[in-house]
């Protein structure tokens, strides 16, 4: 068992439950809840990509490509 992987799993679970709770308590499109849910989603996405998929060991161009993708996705998803 890898300590970093285990910590990430716990953090992912907590963030997921937080996002779920936040979406449940906000029954209308409130800007700040949308923003928080998207930020947490970005962190989860990058956590899995960097630690579990070992993107942290890849060339920095790969890291930049995936960071740019998920940030662009979150911004556009939040704006439309």
């Amino acid at each position, binding site marked *: 068992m890898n300590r970093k992987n285990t910590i990430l799993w716990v953090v992912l679970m907590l963030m997921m439950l937080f996002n779920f709770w936040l979406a449940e308590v906000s029954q209308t499109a409130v800007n700040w809840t949308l923003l928080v849910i998207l930020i947490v989603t970005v962190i989860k996405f990058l956590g899995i990509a960097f630690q579990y998929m070992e993107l942290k060991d890849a060339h920095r161009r790969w890291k930049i490509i995936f960071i740019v*993708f998920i940030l662009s996705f979150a911004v556009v998803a939040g704006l439309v």
Partner: protein
Amino acid sequence: MEKTKSFLYPPGGILIWIIVLVEVLTFGIALIVFRTYFHQDYDVFLASQNMLSKNIGLFNTIVLITSGFFMATVIVKIKQSRIKEAVKWMFFTIGTGLLFLFVKGWEYSIKINEGHGFGYDDFFDFYWMLTSFHFIHVLVGMAILSVLLFKLRKGDYGASNFLDIETGGVFWHMCDLIWILLFTVLYLLH
């Protein structure tokens, strides 16, 4: 280490990362289009979204992320030359993948019995297209992992020879990444 730091040699190989990039872009664009439709027909989409079982979606997210954690553990064990333990964690990975498919199939049967199949409205058209496409990816991932498990048990992989496992693992985690986006946009955002 020098090799993996090269742009041409990311962990798992460049081909799988190109596939991951194309896949997340495809799903990402589709989800942006979904968000646009959502806001054009807000009340109808919100009503349909409320018909989804968020608890089932949450459960499946837990299952798939846990499966990803198991897969990451397989890689760790192989790097430590603990092949028997790697086999055990690979079984857990495939088992949780099966559980995901079973629960998703159950959710599909509930939606069909309720009359919310493909063609019910625009929301459910997106729901069925996106989640069934993801479902197929998980099926393909299970097939890949099953072949890798067979070869792992045969002794084909070890601490100095695990590129195939790493590649399969990246594909499996891609299913996690896509599901995280799907769950957030289809089930949570309104």
